[in-house]
């Protein structure tokens, strides 16, 4: 029952797990270096980010327009975000003392450092653009300057201090494989009637 592999370690997906994360978001004694800096650790809730930034005043409506565009793009081409190896994304707007802030949270199966240029290319190529353009301090030349995009993301990343997984370390592909197997078995049983 417990055969999920993750990063070389056998992880027991049947056993829910929580991980307390030190200040700064990394375990200092085993921090892994990526191409653009230290990599935030994989937790029972897989990899992820929480990016928080202030929006350019008056640009709020563009976030709602962006939401409609993303909905349309994914409906039109359901695998258009496949390269990002995602589980879930959440986009949130909230107020602090009259200013509007934006929070972008993602949960995915590969550390952000690895495929980050692919993400930049994806936002540029699909016409999705990025809602980040409406954030204060976001580099205007992001489409041709992946390092500047990545620097912004890293500077606005708020690492978790605690993460929990009900079925820890399981990848989206493994979940999809399991559901396909289940469907195949159901189909097989139907055929046996």
């Amino acid at each position, binding site marked *: 029952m417990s055969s999920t*592999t*993750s*990063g*070389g370690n056998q992880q027991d997906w049947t056993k829910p797990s929580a991980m307390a994360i030190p200040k700064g978001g990394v375990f200092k004694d085993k921090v*892994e*270096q*990526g*191409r*653009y800096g230290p990599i935030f650790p994989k937790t029972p809730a897989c990899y992820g980010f929480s990016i928080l930034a202030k929006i350019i005043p008056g640009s709020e409506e563009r976030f709602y327009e962006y939401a409609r565009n993303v909905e349309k793009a994914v409906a039109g081409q359901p695998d258009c975000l496949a*390269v990002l190896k995602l589980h879930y994304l959440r986009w949130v707007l909230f107020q602090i003392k009259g200013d509007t802030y934006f929070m972008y949270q993602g949960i995915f*199966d*590969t550390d952000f450092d*690895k*495929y980050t*240029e*692919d993400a930049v*290319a*994806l936002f*540029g190529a699909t016409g999705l653009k990025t809602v980040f353009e409406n954030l204060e301090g976001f580099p205007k*030349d992001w*489409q*041709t*300057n*992946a*390092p500047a995009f990545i620097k912004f993301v890293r500077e606005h990343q708020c690492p978790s201090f605690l993460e929990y997984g009900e079925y820890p370390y399981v*990848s989206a*592909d*493994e979940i999809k494989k399991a559901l396909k197997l289940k469907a195949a078995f159901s189909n097989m049983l139907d055929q046996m009637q």
Partner: protein
Amino acid sequence: MLELDDIQYILLMRVPALTGRYEFLSFRNATGGRAWLSGIREKVQSAADARASLEKEKRWVTVALTWNGLRALGVDETSLATFPEEFKQGMVARAEMLGDTGPNHPDNWVGGLASPGLHAIVILFAGDEAERERCVMEHNKFISQCKDVEVLSSLDLQAVPPFIYAHDHFGYRDRLSQPVIEGSGEVPTPGSGAPLKPGEFILGYPDETGPPVNLPQPEILSRNGSYMAYRRLQEHVGMFRDFLRQNAQTVEEQELLAAKLMGRWRSGAPLVLSPDKDDQQLAADPQRNNAFNYKEMDPQGYAVPLGSHARRMNPRDTAANMNRRRLIRRGATYGPYLPEDAAEDGAERGIAAFVICASLIRQFEFAQNVWANDRNFHELGNERDPIIGNQDGTLEYKIPKRPIRKKITGLPAFTTVRGGAYFFLPGIKALHYLATLGDVR
């Protein structure tokens, strides 16, 4: 239009060399370094030169510099600061991310390559042994006159017999899949994809996303230049052959296992097109030997395991953004040939290769960090590249097969990194600019 008379030949062509030598140099001061560069500069061939003289030429020379080398020549701090961060840091500082840990760590490198005093490399390729000797003597004589230039180390290159086609000490045929640059006049072989925009490999030209941006300054220095990642990779031939014998019964099964690690038979024939037996004619036919993909032709990896070297280094239609990850490979083998029936003799042998690209972080480092060393590439869970990945004996290698896959556990390291460096490969005019930096302009 490519400025062929300003681009160093190595970027655009392979030459018919069977031997050669790399010299790794350090400059004691800027004047000494520039004097050496002034002298060697006229020996360096542009792509136009090398093309025009290919029939009669017997030696080809390339010069490249580290970031410390540019500084040592007297490039000012303002200009130095415009180079990309990863090049400034150098390969040693990037070691952990590149997987250069354990026996591969820069502490164990040879030839002074991990030293901040490494400033320049001269790459000599020669048609035959006599020509190499002549060039080495000539350069030694020249160096003896440059008292402020120190030779940190040299490495003699030697093709591995039989010389019918290029291959490494393990016996794998090389040079089968290379990107083609738009405007180079080359025609891609079937399966190699459309020509790529020159800016993917040569600074100053449009790349796959548009016009050139963020180039090192001044323009004269960066234009027609590129970056080269050097890797000296020792190949443990005795161990490799023992591994094949221990994990496969017959000679045929050993060949198949070798092919499964690479993704091609040692002859070069692609497993996708000939999964069950070797095919020498297919291997030698450029119209067919690269004409395959993975997504449609081998999605599960029954022919080419998902983690094999070729599938990791060029995932073809199974990776996003491929046109921005391509690499030009050059280089040669070094060390004595170990005959097939001979026992391991302990001599160092391997490949000394260059990866040429316009962005080390986006192209070379991505390939090394993600494709070679991501244990979870293609959801493999506990694997790295079986040939060049960082193997510490704890990882596995899975070979998909019906009804059940074969899993090899405790894969040994068949290669060890013995050195490496990041070089800037200037254009011909930039070499002149650097050689005359101290002069009044």
